[in-house]
């Protein structure tokens, strides 16, 4: 069954694209997206938004059955372990973090996910034009935002750089006027991937096509002459103080894993409610979350997408609506 991008009628003048990651939405089914939680967080105006979801789990499944990455992933986890300290908990953390690292090892998988995202964004662009013209409005007055989680942040980051720099996608910020109102990355592993994949750069195929590795991290933008047009006016990073994928370990920021783009708006969730105070407790929570993936709220999982969305209703209303 081929991938078909979602096409929606816009109820109003804004749309949101959800890009899933691992852990809290790894089932790949429609129900795995925390749509109800998002609508609750957005409040009464939530039904004005066209909410798209893009699912790339089927591409991950291709890799799992076609290609065995075990050896290379083992090298990457070892790199993570060395930075986290050597104990059992570090192994658990490395397992958890390893889930977001493997796509850099396959150019085919990276390009395939990119194409899925490009196709979906192009469809959103066409839907926007049709919705606006049908109402006698200018499509450029209609707004698109992205909310991504975990590994989805990495794929989003790569896709945004690809469309900002490749004219053939017809989605450049300046040349095609394709910009986003907000791009919200929740628990982004972009810096984590940059560090760990950077340490094994020699075995990463087509490094030049990996935006997270080929140049300094920055908000995706098109450069035209001397003018730089960013993809979005609000690039927002949301992370939690107990979430290692987002670059924190028990309240401490891990500089090698924490995404810190110039110009990004940063929101740090203190995650005190999780009641995690030791490496062992964190390891247990992450192990449990890793083995019980699904859409439900997992209060003990510091990496839960549902929890991030539930805790940041004000931010989401302001940024998306």
């Amino acid at each position, binding site marked *: *069954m*081929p*991938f*078909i*991008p*979602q*096409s*929606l*009628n816009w109820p109003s003048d804004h749309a949101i694209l959800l890009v899933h990651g691992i852990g809290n939405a790894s089932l*790949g*089914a*429609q129900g795995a997206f925390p749509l109800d939680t998002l609508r609750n967080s957005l409040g009464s105006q939530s039904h004005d938004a066209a909410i798209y979801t*893009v*699912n790339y*789990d*089927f*591409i991950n*499944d*291709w*890799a799992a*059955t*076609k*290609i*065995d990455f075990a050896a290379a992933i083992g090298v990457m986890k070892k790199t993570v372990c060395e930075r986290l300290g050597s104990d059992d908990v570090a192994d658990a953390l490395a397992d958890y973090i390893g889930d977001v690292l493997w796509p850099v090892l396959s*150019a*085919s*998988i990276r*390009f*395939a996910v*990119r*194409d*899925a995202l*490009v*196709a979906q964004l*192009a*469809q959103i*662009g*066409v*839907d926007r*034009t*049709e919705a606006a*013209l*049908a109402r*006698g409005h*200018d*499509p*450029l007055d209609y707004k698109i935002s992205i909310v991504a989680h975990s590994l989805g942040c990495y794929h989003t980051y790569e896709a945004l750089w*690809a469309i900002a720099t*490749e004219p*053939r*996608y*017809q*989605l450049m910020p*300046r*040349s*095609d*006027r394709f910009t986003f109102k907000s791009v919200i990355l929740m628990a982004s592993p972009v810096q984590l991937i940059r560090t760990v994949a950077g340490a094994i750069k020699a075995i990463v*195929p*087509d490094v030049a*096509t990996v935006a997270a590795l080929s140049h300094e991290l920055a908000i995706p933008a098109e450069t035209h002459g001397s003018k730089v047009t960013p993809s979005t006016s609000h690039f927002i990073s949301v992370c939690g103080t107990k979430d290692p994928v987002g670059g924190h370990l028990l309240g401490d920021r891990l500089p090698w894993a924490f995404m810190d783009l110039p110009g990004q708006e940063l929101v740090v969730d203190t995650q005190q409610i999780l009641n995690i105070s030791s490496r062992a407790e964190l390891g247990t929570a992450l192990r449990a979350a890793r083995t019980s993936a699904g859409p439900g709220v997992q209060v003990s999982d510091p990496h839960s997408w549902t929890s991030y969305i539930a805790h940041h209703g004000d931010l989401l209303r302001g940024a998306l609506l």
Partner: protein
Amino acid sequence: MTPVVTGATRAPNATRLTGWLTMRVARATGMVRIMMLAGFAVGATSVNAQPASLPAAHERLLARADSISVGDYCRLAQRVLSNRTVVTALADDSATAKLSAASICDPLLSDFSLRALRGEAPAPLASIARVRTGGYSAVRGTLFDAMDEFRAAVTSPEARAALRQSADNATVMELVRVTETAHSLLVLAARDSALSRLRRYERKLGPTSARLNAPEVVLNYAAQRWVPGFGPRPQSGPSPLELVASYVPTYATIVDDRLQAVSASEFGLRWYMFGERFGAEGLKGLLFPSYWSAGALVVSDRNGALVWPWDGRTRTGAFVSWGAIKIAHVGGRQGEWIVSRQMQIIPFVF
């Protein structure tokens, strides 16, 4: 814009040749019986892809693109560029906008609808007569480039503000309708290119592709990195080529009217067919599979499953596969035909 579909152009010849070979060989040696025994049913695995919804937006867009001609675009561009407030707001972009408008106002193409210009609708007869002397195919691509540049200039925040301030609403909305329709056709084409590449990735990596063993993973990883023609590219998608280096204990042959297993090592190339009708599953997949392969193989003179191919006196030969069905001929005092089905008994091993 149009991706390279190497498999699509090669597939028909490959289909005829391999199909003919398979049938000739099977008839000549009575191998049909073995094929039936080996069981060639192809597993039907579905992919959990995105649920679909009908692209009504697509239909509306095409209908609108049919109703707007290049001449309409030209007249509108000229009207906008006659507005001094807008030209002032365009600043450095005004030269680009004027050059783009000049390209758009090609009298040879003025009767073309935007959709016809994309080649998705018949060209007007009157235009064809003239265009045949005017280089239609070479010009139409650059015309869309010109439309894109014109749109980029007149949709800058400054130009939009100036236009809304100085022009009547009908002109503003007509400009929006025309420029956005032309641009959407390009976005749609970019979307279709991305989807086409994605289908090819599915063909090569998805459920109807051949599973790789660990050495093949390493070999193909190396080939994709260092051998031209093997690696994927962002704009052209996956390469149709894949290296084969596998131990196959599931060949079968008939000796003295008895079915015997044969183990072999294969070395060769697999070619994925990216044409639309290929990559079928189930029985249809026998006719239109995802790939074919060919190469050399090594077989021991001892028949049997799980026999080391270099055990005893080795024999060499050649194999060819059409999808999962494989047939090979190995030398020796008496040449021997053997058949198998592409499968992996132990994942990533053989």
